[in-house]
């Protein structure tokens, strides 16, 4: 079972359970010792904006859930640089645990994965 799994998360943080489910899937995958990566694209990049306070929505803070990834050996989150640029988000507004993929790097990264789960 040395297959690699990439989890792509493309939805904004409080849109249904997409963001949380992608994180759950990453944690379960890593706990099975499957080589696991998490890639944020499109509105998914909003998940790691600093300063989220969703208490009034009665929801748990999605950004803070990203901190549990490291415990399971997922040490970086891949982020599509173009998605940041389109939204005018500067890297320093993000949680400090990411690797930017610029230009063709997204495509080559995906080509290396054995299986891809989308959220």
């Amino acid at each position, binding site marked *: 079972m040395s297959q690699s799994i990439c989890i792509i998360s493309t939805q*904004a*943080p*409080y*849109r249904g359970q997409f963001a949380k489910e992608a994180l759950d899937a990453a944690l379960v995958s890593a706990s099975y010792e499957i080589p696991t990566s998490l890639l944020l694209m499109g*509105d998914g990049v*909003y998940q790691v*904006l*600093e*300063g*989220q*306070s*969703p208490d*009034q*929505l009665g*929801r748990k803070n999605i*950004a803070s859930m990203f901190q549990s990834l490291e415990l399971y050996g997922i040490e970086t989150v891949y982020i599509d640089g173009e998605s940041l640029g*389109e*939204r*005018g*988000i500067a890297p320093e*507004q993000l949680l400090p645990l990411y690797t930017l993929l610029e230009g063709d790097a997204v495509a080559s990264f995906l080509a290396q994965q054995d299986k891809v789960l989308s959220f």
Partner: protein
Amino acid sequence: MATLHTVNKTGQPLELCLRALNAGDSVLLLEEGVYALYEAGDVLSELLRHVAVHVLDADVLARGMTNRDNLDIDMIDYQGFVELTETNDKVVSWF
């Protein structure tokens, strides 16, 4: 007949709302519509010259968008949302 337009997403809902506005109308960005602060800064600046634009505080705070308040858009709470529905004659929802 002034209208309050609520917009809960960028993309199609925001675009359709823009072409439905009359002078004197108000716009309320809520839920994922608050991302317009990131994605549609130029549109919003233009918009602010013609109609009143508000954002719902709970949704802005939830998403960590407070660093965009340089746009000088009026942040309101649910009480303010209620008041907007009182002062306008009808509500149109774009989603």
